[in-house]
């Protein structure tokens, strides 16, 4: 496998809902690759298709157009058994640490279950030791935490458990869907740093899905901006953030709370202009334009670059 080959790639993938005569593209011609040891951020507002992208990667949805490639091999429709094997390589961390852990089970159960399912060769004692090692990796004390139930832990601790659970099967790819949006600011960075450390230690490919662009910049090297199912702009993080070219990206960045910029009242016509940008950005757009060394957009008609 060559150095530059992504571990996991989406190649022109579309996911269509609705009726045949009125299709709704939840994802339209989405292409990107996840590379070992790198983090790619996927940002966009609610309904832009971020979570659809995650579900396609997890193979909860089958693409209606295009294909997924895992280590260069195309993935077709697979049996339940093949998908289970796939999920030993591709794991997910969810948004809500309060509902993604089963309230009726202890932390030990949560960590030992993936080991029981995916590493059946392990004996009882080995499983125990592996679960303890996982807790230590996410900087929690096994003696204090192992016997606890989810409700006895804080949101940040629970999210650490979710990460430990994802790591249990030694995955190559982790998809983290808004992993910190329900946590307080002071614990957010701890979780983001943990994800980063795990990425470095295990050479993981990470997809970080968020609507919080500032945290995306904190963890990821590359960024994609999604709107209405399409990736409208993508490339190296600072190139996209400091020099956004697509009108929707500019709109999104201007709306991000920034304490260094005083809030100003909407200009006359501003709301209409926002509507126009949204309408145009939602149109299917096949062209791709390179606007920087590692920086691309899908231009909308009549767009002036620069």
């Amino acid at each position, binding site marked *: 496998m060559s150095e530059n080959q992504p571990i996991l790639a989406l190649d022109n993938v579309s996911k269509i809902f609705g009726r045949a005569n009125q299709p709704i593209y939840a994802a339209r011609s989405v292409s990107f690759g996840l590379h070992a040891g790198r983090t790619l951020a996927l940002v966009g507002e609610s309904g832009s298709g971020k979570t659809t992208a995650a579900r396609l990667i997890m193979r909860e949805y089958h693409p209606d157009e295009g294909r997924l490639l895992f280590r260069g091999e195309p993935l077709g429709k697979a049996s339940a058994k093949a998908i289970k094997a796939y999920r030993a390589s591709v794991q997910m961390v969810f948004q809500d640490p309060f509902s993604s852990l089963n309230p009726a089970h202890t932390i030990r159960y949560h960590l030992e279950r993936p080991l029981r399912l995916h590493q059946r060769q392990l004996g009882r004692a080995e499983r125990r030791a592996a679960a303890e090692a996982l807790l230590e990796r996410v900087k929690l004390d096994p003696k204090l935490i192992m016997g606890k139930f989810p409700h006895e832990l804080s949101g940040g601790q629970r999210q650490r458990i979710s990460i430990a659970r994802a790591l249990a099967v030694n995955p190559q790819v982790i998809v983290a869907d808004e992993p910190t949006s329900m946590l307080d*600011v002071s614990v*957010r960075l701890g979780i983001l740093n943990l994800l980063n450390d795990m990425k470095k230690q295990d050479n993981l490919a990470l997809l970080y899905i968020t609507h919080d662009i500032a945290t995306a910049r904190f963890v990821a090297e590359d960024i994609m901006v999604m709107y209405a199912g399409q990736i409208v702009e993508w490339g190296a993080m600072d190139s996209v953030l400091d020099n956004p070219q697509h009108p929707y990206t500019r709109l999104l960045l201007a709306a991000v709370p920034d304490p260094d910029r005083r809030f100003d009242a909407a200009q006359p016509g501003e709301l209409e202009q*926002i509507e126009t940008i949204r309408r145009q950005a939602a149109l299917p757009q096949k062209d791709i334009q390179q606007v920087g060394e590692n920086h691309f957009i899908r231009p909308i008609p009549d767009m002036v670059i620069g």
Partner: protein
Amino acid sequence: MSAPVLSIRNLNIDYIGAEANFRAVKDVSFDIAPGEFFGLAGESGCGKSTIAFAVSRLHRPPALIRTGSEILVDGRDVLELDKDALRRFRWREVAMVFQSAMNSLNPVLTIEAQFYDVLHTHKGMSREAARERAAELLKLVDIPPDRLAAYPHQCSGGMRQRIVIAICLALNPKLLIMDEPTTALDVVVQREILQRIDVLRKRLGFAVLFITHDLGLMVQVSDRIGIMLEGELVEVNDAQTIYRSPQHDYTKRLWASMPKLHGDQIRPEAGA
């Protein structure tokens, strides 16, 4: 300086427990001037929502406001109002937008019926008069009057949030309390709504008590900010001063845990 619209003095609130009480708000005092945008920031459990509920006396047992506490709205002590006075006070003097306000509309009533509910109860307006006033109020938040006939599920989240704000402004309150009003919305819609509030408070002259955990947003929109930590108000100052030269250690740590959008990134170990 003109007399404050809200003046909180030595506010102590306990949550009464079977074994021990939990003091959620500890000796908090601050003022909000007429027309001022005041931000109250802090993490989950710091007592900021408890204060918001106490101001309109919406707190419920086991929450208990301790004697000696004062909440003055326009010079009148809210804690001494009787039942009737309290009903007249709410909405007319202080209106509140709740955290999941977009879900606080009644799903089986049209938007018009929900405006009528407030305008009839508090002002005794007829259906026709209420419809006219509701159309005016919707215009304030940029929603066409034909939406009056719609049900909440026919409106987007941002639109529902603006409708709630319009209903809150129906009786020209002096103070609008907003508890995490835009947390469930995405940033583009969030900005639209807060820009709208900012224009309206300048035009109509109401003050805002804005509660959020989004510190960047708070600095952007507020005139003054109070930082809360475990029930105590640890620092109050104008927004720019508190951002540029924070005094309290906790405030400094809060700023240090906010990733930046441009320029030098914060030190990775800052929040670990």
